[in-house]
C-alpha cells in the first residue's frame, strides 16, 4: 500500500489541460448572458436521470476521473436539488419520471439553469414516439443548454459545463 501511495505522490498527475476555449465559446453563445453573469465562478450541479439508457451517466462519471478532474474548475455534483444551481438532465423523459423531474426542478432554488445532456435529452432520441416517453427535456422543462452526443464524450461534457462558468467578457473576446 505504501508503495502505491508513494507512486501517486511522486508521479506526475494524469490530469489533462482544460479544453480549448473555442469549444466553450460555441456553447457560451447558446446561453443567455444573464445566466453567465449570475453564476460566477463556481457551479453546483444536480444530475437527474429522466429515463436514460445509462450510457450518459457513464460519461458524466468519467468527467470526474483523474484525466478530466472537473472539480478543479469549481464544478461539483451535489446530492440535493436544494443545493444546486444547475440541473443536468439525461435521457428522454419517460412518463413515469416526468413528475419526479418536475418536482426536482421545483425543489431547486432560483436562479437555476437546466442543461440537457445527450441526444435523448434533446428530443427523445431513438425512444421518441413511444407511449411511455414524454419526449426530450424541452417538452417538460425550459432548457438553457444542450450538450449533444450519444453519449457525449467527457471532454464535450466538460466544454459544455465550462461554458456556464465563463464570464461574458471572456467569451465575447474569444473568436
Amino acid at each position, binding site marked *: *500500500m505504501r*508503495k*502505491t*501511495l508513494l507512486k*501517486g505522490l511522486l508521479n506526475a498527475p*494524469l490530469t489533462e489541460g482544460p479544453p480549448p476555449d473555442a469549444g466553450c465559446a460555441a456553447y457560451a453563445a447558446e446561453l443567455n448572458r444573464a445566466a453567465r453573469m449570475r453564476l460566477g465562478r463556481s457551479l453546483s450541479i444536480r*444530475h*437527474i*436521470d*429522466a*429515463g*436514460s*439508457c*445509462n*450510457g*450518459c*451517466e*457513464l*460519461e*458524466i*462519471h*468519467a468527467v*470526474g*476521473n*483523474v*484525466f478530466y478532474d472537473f472539480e478543479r474548475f469549481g464544478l461539483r*455534483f451535489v*446530492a*440535493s*436539488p436544494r443545493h444546486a444551481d444547475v440541473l443536468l438532465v439525461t*435521457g*428522454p423523459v*419517460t*412518463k*413515469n*419520471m*416526468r*413528475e*419526479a423531474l418536475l418536482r*426536482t426542478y421545483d425543489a431547486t432554488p432560483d436562479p437555476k439553469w437546466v442543461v440537457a445532456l445527450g441526444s435523448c435529452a434533446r428530443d427523445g*432520441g*431513438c*425512444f421518441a*414516439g*413511444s*407511449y*411511455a*416517453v414524454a419526449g426530450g427535456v424541452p417538452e417538460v422543462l425550459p432548457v438553457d443548454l444542450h450538450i449533444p452526443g*450519444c*453519449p457525449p*464524450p467527457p471532454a464535450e461534457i466538460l466544454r459544455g459545463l465550462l461554458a456556464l462558468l465563463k464570464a461574458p467578457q471572456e467569451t465575447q473576446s474569444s473568436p
Partner: protein
Amino acid sequence: MPALAELIAQGRPAGPLRPWPRIIAGEKLWQQLIARLASGRATLLGLWGEAAAVHMAILDEGARYAAVATYECPEGRYPSVGQSHPPAIRLERALRDLYGLEPLGLSDGRPWLDHGQWGISQPLGRNPAGPGEVEPYAFLPAEGESLHEIPVGPVHAGIIEPGHFRFTANGEAVVRLEERLGYKHKGIESLMQGAALDEAALIAGRVSGDSTVAFSYAFARAVEAALGIEIPPRATWLRAIMAELERLANHLGDIGAICNDAAFALMHAYCGALREHVLRTADACFGHRLMMDCIVPGGVSADLSSRGFETVRQLVAMIGKEFPPLIELYDNTASLQDRTAGTGIISPALVRQYGCGGTIGRASGRAFDTRVTLAYPPYDALLFNYDIPLLTDGDVNARVWIRIREVEQSLALIERILARMPAGAAIKAPITAARGGGEGIAIAEGFRGDVLAWVRIGTDTRIERCHLRDPSWFQWPLLEAAIEGNIVADFPLCNKSFNCSYSGHDL
C-alpha cells in the same frame, strides 16, 4: 424422471425458432415445466409474451440444453409460473401491464411497470384501453415494535439511475427492503415492433448503455439465427474483442466504485484511470468509447487495423502491469475489507433458484457463464476446459474478487483472441430482404450476466416482435435478500456490488 429434453419433445413443435427448439405446451405440459422449475431441476431464462401467447425460455444447466415453451392464451389467461416459482413474479406482473395477460393463480395483483402515467393501459395487448385508476402503490407491510420506514428515490443522491427503495428498519438494521422499479420504462418492445433491422439494432444497443456491446451481440446473433446468416469469421472474433473490452471497462469501474462506496477513494481513482484507458482504446480502435453500434446484424461495423492491434496489445500490457498492485492494495487494506467481508450475503440456494447469472451468481457458487455453459462462437473454440472463477461466500467481498479474477481472465482472453484473429477483408455479411422471415434466439454474456434476445422477423426483414431480457431481472430481487439484517448505511455498498441495470430491467 425424464430429462428436460424429453419433456420438451412431448410438446407440439412450433415455429421455426433457431437454434433452440420451441414447442406449444398444453396445460399439462406447462404445469410439468412449472413443477420442474419450482423443484430446482430447471432454470428460468426468460418469460415474455405477445398479444395471445406466453413464451418461457427454460434451461437444463447440467445438460446444457435450452428450449422455449409457448402457452397459447387467446382468452388472455395462462397458469401462473410465478405462483410456484417466485423468480417469474415480476416478469408476469410486467406481462400483465404490457399485454393484459392474466397469470392465473398469482396472488400479487399489483402493477409493476405501469405507474398509471402512460395515458393507455396494456399498450401491447389486443385491446389497449384508456388509462386505469391510479392507485397508490401498496408496499408490502412490515409489522413490529419500533419499526420505521425509509423511502428512497426515485431520484437518488448520486449520479445513478432512478428507482424507489422502501426500507423498513429497526434502528439501523434493515428488516425489509422492497424495490419499486419501472421509472425508466421507455416502451422498447413497442418501438421494436415494425422497426427496420438497422433501427432495431440501434435501439437494442441502447437498452442498457453499459452493456451496449452485450445487447448488440445478443440481438445480432438472434437476427442472424432467424435469417440463417453466416457472418465472416473475422467479425466473430472482433465481436469477442469488443465484448471483453466492455467487460474490462465495467469491472474496473465497478471495483473502484465499490471501494469508493466503502470510503476508499484511492482505489476509485486508480481504477477510474484504467477504465478511461480502456474506453480511449475502444474509441481509437472502433470509433466509439462504449462501442455503441459497433456490433450489427451480419457482423461488425468497424475493423481492427494493424495499428489497432498494437493499441489493444499495449492496453493489455499496461493493465497487466498496473492492476496487480491494486489487487494487493484491496487485499491489504483492513478498513476496506472490514466493510466488504460479510456484508450483503446471498446464499447459493437463492442464486440457483433465481438463475442469477453474472458476477453475483458466480460469487455465490453458481458456475454459470454463457460463454462456457451455452458457448457460442468464438468462445466455444476459446474457452474449452475453462474454469469459471467461483466463490461461495456470496458477500460484497466475493463479488469484488470475482470481478478481479474476470479482469485478469479478460486480459488473457484478449491476447488469445488477437493471436487467433482470422485475416480477411470481410467484416459484415449482407442482409437482403429476399431471405424471408424467421425466428431466432440468442444469448450473450455481458459484464453483468446473461443477456437473452428473441426476435421474430417478417418477410420484409422488419421486426415483428422482439424481446430483450436483461440479467438484472433475476438479480434485483436478490438485492432485497442481500440487505436483510445489514445496516442501512451499507445499502449503497451492497447495491454497488450488485450494480443491476435499471434501464435494462425497465425496458
